[in-house]
């Protein structure tokens, strides 16, 4: 037999649960995270208006990432977490 090698390296798959779901949007604070890719802002503004029309939200906050391709800064994530109950983010394209 001849030895062969797998050049890929392992992926460590620790399992992480998502946050608890909400029963309804009413009375919640909505955060919108715009990753600044082209037209993400237009899509999110539209969506925000449609969500507001359909659900009585307590508040809506709008955030923009510094760069569409980098992860959001930890400080921004913390600020979003602190001030919102639910978040919508776009766009992965």
């Amino acid at each position, binding site marked *: 037999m001849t030895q062969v090698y797998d050049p890929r390296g392992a992926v460590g798959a620790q399992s992480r649960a*998502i*946050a608890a779901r909400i029963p309804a949007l009413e009375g919640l604070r909505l955060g919108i995270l715009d990753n600044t890719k082209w037209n993400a802002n237009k899509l999110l503004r539209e*969506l925000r208006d449609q969500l507001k029309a359909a659900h009585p939200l307590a508040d809506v906050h709008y955030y923009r990432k510094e760069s569409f391709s980098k*992860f959001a800064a930890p400080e921004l994530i913390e600020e979003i977490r602190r001030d919102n109950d639910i978040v919508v983010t776009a766009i992965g394209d």
Partner: protein
Amino acid sequence: MHDGFSLESLGVPTAVIVTTEFLHEARVQRAALGMQGLVPVVIQHPLSSLSDEEIRGRAAQALAQVVGVLRGTQPDPS
């Protein structure tokens, strides 16, 4: 997906919107992060070259999915 992962890890339900072109990558990213429960909202690709009218349509496409993801009733896209 990574920002969605971060927020969900901190307890904030997050609807992550991707286009159809990005769905495969979104799946691989969430597997690599170990958060299989992170259901993405999918709209038709492209987004960058659309008119305002078409963007309105994409928002409408996303609306029900967003609510579904946050409430836990949205199935994982196939």
